[in-house]
């Protein structure tokens, strides 16, 4: 996301933009929802410092204000570094707001069209029956009225042989949560549908279902299969795993709603999800439509530095090596999943340019054993500090060394390669990627224009 946002904004600014990527970016792993900020960075323990703020944050604005107060070096904070002291918070909020509008506008009408806004966090249901705070979700995941009426009846519909979703266990988990919070709907059921893309009711993957539902006429069978359960339970809403299609999901949702007369929406899935696939595809198209060139299958390996500048970048494909000489470089190589950082018992390394990584406390991380920065509980509200490791940057998002000096004047970075941001804990992944991507992209574009 960070690379695509940065590349797109640079291309929209009239620059010749080339994106190097090995295959898919970490966006393809995401749930397809854009989280801005859901929780404070260092876990629920910090709630004591935020007694007046509800956690999870009710609005992105609440979350950003809390973060900027407690963690000024969080990537969101860096966005506001150029502003006057009393205007930092407002400038960051304005930037994030603008980033959301920018993305919604670019993805409108695409297979990953988004709904939601900066005014409030929304709580879509996941395939596990839990909810998560997020800012934007794909339109296929949206339900306008689910929580509005206590008499609503929700059915979780699964598919026989689709091991990635168990409608019964989701129903149980969701119902337990509803009983605990007392929020509607209170009546929840489940059903298992007999739809099989290849004629066998076993070994069915999400992507197969999504591809199947992209075919014309596939909604007729699905609607018929769901209808009997809707009638039987008197359901007002139907939740299905996010497999309604890759290109046709939104049209399929509309068709199903028309046929069934009830609201239908997709759940948020675990990675790698079909909505993540849609988001990656839609972002790739946005980048290309802006005039960018996407060179997939090439991994940036190293760069040649000259006079505080990157002169060229060397990239490797399976059987070729290419050397590119750009005016500016944006590093958006991700953290451990994206491959931007590597860690072993000897320490943490930045993989492309051998830059200095830092821990979440901004100490050099080259000789830090990751095991000492993990929590003994794999699932903990305090998360794992190692996931906050990354690069320290200056106010223009240029990576800096231990003396605080930028490694190269024309090198910028964005997204999860940045330090002090623990996306899985904060629920801020694609939000930080988007916001810092746009900021770094603009800075790089401005510099490229100055150089020429």
């Amino acid at each position, binding site marked *: 996301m960070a690379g695509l946002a940065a590349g797109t904004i640079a291309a929209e600014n009239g620059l010749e933009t080339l994106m190097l990527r*090995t*295959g*898919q970016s*970490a966006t*393809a*792993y995401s749930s397809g929802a854009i989280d801005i900020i859901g929780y404070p960075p260092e876990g629920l323990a910090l709630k004591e410092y935020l007694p007046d703020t509800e956690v999870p944050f009710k609005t992105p604005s609440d979350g950003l204000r809390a973060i900027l107060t407690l963690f000024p070096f969080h990537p969101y904070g860096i966005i506001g570094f150029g502003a006057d002291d009393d205007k930092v918070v407002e400038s960051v909020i304005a930037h994030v707001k603008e980033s959301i509008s920018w993305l919604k506008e670019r993805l409108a009408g695409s297979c990953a069209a988004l709904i939601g806004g900066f005014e409030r966090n929304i709580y879509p249901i996941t395939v596990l029956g839990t909810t998560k705070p997020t800012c934007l979700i794909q339109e296929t995941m949206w339900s306008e009225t689910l929580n509005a009426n206590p008499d609503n009846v929700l059915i979780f519909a699964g598919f026989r042989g689709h091991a990635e979703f168990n409608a019964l266990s989701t129903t149980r988990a969701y119902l337990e949560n509803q009983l605990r919070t007392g929020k509607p709907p209170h009546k929840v059921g489940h059903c298992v549908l007999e739809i099989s*893309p*290849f004629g*066998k009711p*076993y*070994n*069915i*993957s999400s*992507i*197969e279902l999504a*591809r199947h539902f992209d075919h014309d006429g596939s909604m007729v069978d699905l609607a018929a299969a769901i209808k009997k359960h809707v009638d039987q339970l008197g359901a007002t809403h139907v939740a299905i795993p996010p497999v309604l299609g890759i290109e046709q999901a939104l049209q399929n949702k509309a068709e199903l709603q028309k046929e069934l007369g009830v609201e239908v929406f997709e759940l948020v899935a675990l*990675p*790698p999800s*079909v909505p993540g*696939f849609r988001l990656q*595809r839609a972002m790739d198209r946005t980048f290309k439509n802006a005039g960018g*060139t996407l*060179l*997939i*299958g*090439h991994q940036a390996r190293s760069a040649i530095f000259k006079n505080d500048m990157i002169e060229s970048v060397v990239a490797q*494909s*399976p*059987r*070729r090596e*290419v050397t590119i000489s750009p005016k500016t470089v944006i590093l958006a190589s991700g953290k451990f*999943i*994206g*491959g931007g950082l590597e860690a072993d018992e000897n320490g943490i390394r930045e993989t492309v340019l051998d830059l200095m990584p830092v821990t979440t406390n901004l100490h050099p991380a080259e000789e830090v054993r990751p095991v000492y920065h993990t929590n003994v509980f794999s699932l903990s509200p305090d998360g794992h500090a190692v996931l906050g490791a990354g690069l320290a940057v200056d106010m223009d998002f240029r990576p800096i060394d231990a003396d605080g000096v930028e490694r190269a004047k024309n090198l910028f970075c964005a997204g999860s390669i940045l330090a002090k941001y623990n996306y899985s804990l904060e629920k801020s992944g694609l939000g930080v990627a988007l916001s810092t991507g746009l900021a770094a992209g603009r800075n790089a574009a401005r510099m490229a224009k100055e150089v020429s």
Partner: protein
Amino acid sequence: MTEEEAFEFVKNTLKEERITPYHKNEIEIVHSVEGCINCGLCINHCPVVAAVGVDRFTGPRSIAVELSRSPPEFWSTADKIYLCTGCGTCREVCPKNVNVPEVVNLVRARIFEHRPDLVPKGLHMVREIIVEHNLAFEPWEDPEEKVESRDVRLERLDIPYTEDIIKKNAEVLFYPGCQAEERAQEVREAAKVVLNYFDVDYTLLDDMSCCGLPSALMGDDETSQRLAGLLKEKVAGLGVKKVVTTCAGCTSNISDISLQDQWSIPVYHMVEYLAEEVGLDRLKQALGSSKEFSEVTVTVHDPCHLIRHTSRRTMQDAIEILKVISGVKVAISEAEDSCCGGGGLVAYHSKDVADSVVQENLISIDKTGAERLVAPCPLCTAQIEANLFKSGSSVEVDDLMVFIAQRLPKK
């Protein structure tokens, strides 16, 4: 027992257990499997899974996390492992660079060695041809018939015939590959026309032999290595400085073996050679002003062995070349993760799978509205052409070299 005796003892034990120790150059491939985080991203992108589902072909993740981890039981994977087209999509999308296509070859090699009865019969037939003729296709029985077939094709396509050039110390060896040598002869001839037009100092092999890729894909490593060695000898004997081929599979394989066997000369696909060595300016000069052909909208097919086994830049070169040809409008197909289905020798034993894989391509080709499809690979061209014809499509298919040669001014 001495150390040597102990080594021999262990080796014989392994043989009894039907285990072949990994070769030195396989260790990195085997280690790459350890990186698999079982995320399943590869399944979302695998064209064979998309075509036939995970029940028929369990997909790359399964190959990485299950099928590759028990050498004595490799034989039990035989119903799945031969369905991989080797397109390389899984390796490309994998965040941990797990080299699944090479793992497939490694497993196939073990099955070939220890349980040849489980290797599909179609592959045994190809092997017999390769072993007997050093070519992946059976040569024409009557050489005159081969010439007749070539001339008919050239006449239909309006491509002039030029004599073969075979000489020592030429700048370039033009290596057409087995398909263009024995089947799609028009591609071989078209490439000669292009090379002649741009005054490239080239030679052909006096005795064409396969690069060894089909043998490697079926698991016959011995033949594959023999053929690679044979080709190395011929190239060294000719004293050429560069190798240029029109086949995508040959490009990736010869690039690989030339590196492993230290040929010390660069290997190009023809589109790379034209873009990098001849130059777009000369191409534009030659192709940019012809009024002989009516305007045509063209789409391209990206051969897996070029984009995922070599470099996607090759197809950028191909598109740039097409753009300089007068009257040609390029419509880019949105087929992502596409494969013609012809790879991995799948069509030799599971034609239904190969044909299902190509269907995704056909839909995308149709959507472009193009009247013609070009592919810089004779194998992909044949596979797509046959399926488009069967589907009743009016889109015509050409190898890129044929398309270019037709439009070059006659010298």
